[in-house]
């Protein structure tokens, strides 16, 4: 069904999933193309879908929702114009979804949302008075993959994907399917089946287990420069550790988040750098390599060398809260900044950018 045929208030599910590397896939990811869009608007055989897509449809039906948005099916993959428009609309697609189903445990579409869980073990032992006691034990579930930057991505492969980082932040509600548990995540809370993820620390009488999505949702629309910078630097650090299949997606896969955080306080956006954070924003630095990847510069042009988006490496910048601003001086002046956008998305891909005065082009 075409989106234009739906009412504005139609409730739909959006799927957050990993395409995975082609060599790892058993079944190809089904895609809508210019050649098959008419057929896809009529019907798609469920047998043609990957296991993850089939599971997501089953979950949607059980939730009573009739519509689902899946990127490979809802964006015409060989239509550059449709792809650019859709990439620019990603923020609203995920933010307006009634719920996002996150296939967090999957590396490819073959894995599916549902896992075969390791059950608990029954142990029976005798106490000193010879009375028998039975206990059930199971492996402790790690929750830090949800509350912190994952130290490794293996148990949560989806979290390594750059596109999915944004999808998680933008979604109003998410159900995460992992190997051990199902998690509920929204702008207010993060909950798991065993109940131990909602940590013991409370701030302002609100649960605070370090979950970034909760913090992001709480502050992203506040016109508070310090808070916006704090969020942006955390996003920069987190996002720069994620991986992409297509290097040119680096800015488009962050565009939805950038458009949400944008504000006159920050000024215009130049490939990951906000105008009003110059010149100090030039002082970012790499912070170790990327998990599972060697730090490097992509072969094609992606961003100016003065932006952290120019390299594939985990990056950090200065923490505004740790600054002693009384002693800071900036002998450097940025006289002019500009960039050439490839699409109409002001936060999307660029073909050139410079710091100069007078303008270069």
């Amino acid at each position: 069904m075409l989106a234009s045929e739906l009412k504005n208030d139609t409730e739909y599910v959006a799927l957050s999933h990993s395409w995975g590397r082609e060599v790892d896939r058993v079944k190809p990811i089904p895609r809508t193309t210019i050649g098959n869009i008419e057929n896809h608007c009529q019907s798609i055989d469920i047998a043609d879908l990957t296991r993850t897509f089939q599971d997501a449809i089953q979950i949607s039906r059980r939730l009573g929702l009739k519509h689902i948005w899946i990127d490979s099916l809802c964006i015409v993959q060989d239509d550059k114009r449709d792809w650019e428009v859709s990439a620019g609309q990603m923020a609203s697609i995920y933010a307006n979804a009634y719920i996002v189903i996150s296939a967090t445990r999957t590396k490819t579409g073959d894995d599916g949302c549902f896992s075969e869980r390791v059950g608990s073990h029954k142990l029976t032992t005798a106490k000193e008075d010879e009375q028998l006691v039975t206990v059930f034990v199971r492996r402790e579930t790690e929750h830090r993959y949800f509350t912190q930057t994952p130290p490794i991505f293996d148990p949560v492969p989806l979290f390594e994907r750059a596109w999915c980082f944004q999808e998680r932040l933008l979604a109003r509600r998410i159900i995460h399917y992992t190997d051990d548990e199902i998690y509920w995540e929204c702008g207010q809370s993060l909950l798991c089946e065993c109940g131990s993820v909602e940590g013991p620390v409370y701030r302002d009488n609100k649960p605070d287990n370090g979950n970034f999505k909760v913090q992001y949702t709480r502050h992203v629309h506040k016109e508070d420069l310090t808070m916006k910078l704090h969020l942006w630097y955390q996003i920069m650090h987190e996002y720069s550790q994620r991986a992409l299949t297509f290097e040119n997606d680096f800015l488009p896969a962050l565009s939805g988040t950038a458009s949400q955080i944008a504000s006159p306080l920050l000024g215009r956006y130049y490939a990951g750098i906000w105008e009003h954070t110059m010149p100090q924003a030039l002082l970012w630095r790499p912070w170790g390599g990327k998990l599972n990847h060697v730090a490097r510069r992509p072969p094609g042009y992606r961003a100016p060398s003065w932006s952290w988006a120019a390299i594939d490496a985990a990056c950090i910048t200065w923490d505004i809260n740790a600054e002693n601003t009384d002693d800071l001086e900036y002998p450097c002046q940025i006289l002019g900044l500009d960039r050439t956008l490839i699409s109409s998305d002001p936060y999307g891909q660029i073909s050139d950018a410079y710091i100069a005065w007078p303008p270069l082009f």
Partner: protein
Amino acid sequence: MAAPILTATVRYSWNKDLDSMQYWADYAGTSDRIEEDLPLEVSPGATPDNSEVLLAVVRTTLYPLPISMFSAIWGDRKPEHRWQGLVLRPSSRRPNCYERIGRVEGPVHVLQDSVRRDLVLV
């Protein structure tokens, strides 16, 4: 950008303890370590040993920060004024422009040798 600029020579040095290459900027009678964006010897766009680079001063600040939360780390080290900036090399994409290859910081007294220049960064 208009900034105080220093000219430096890149020096490679192998750090046995860290088992990795380190890079230094030799300039104005001093040396400061370059925090490279990516290893400088890696192609494409390598910056070889003995290359001439520019150092652009972005800001000056007291370092370490005279804030009590850091005293446990820095002990009695007295804060001093330091400059922080970028290491730039001529751009391979655009003539007469420069591109960033890393960061550097050093003592402010060397800034007397700097010259204010307008540079185009790409």
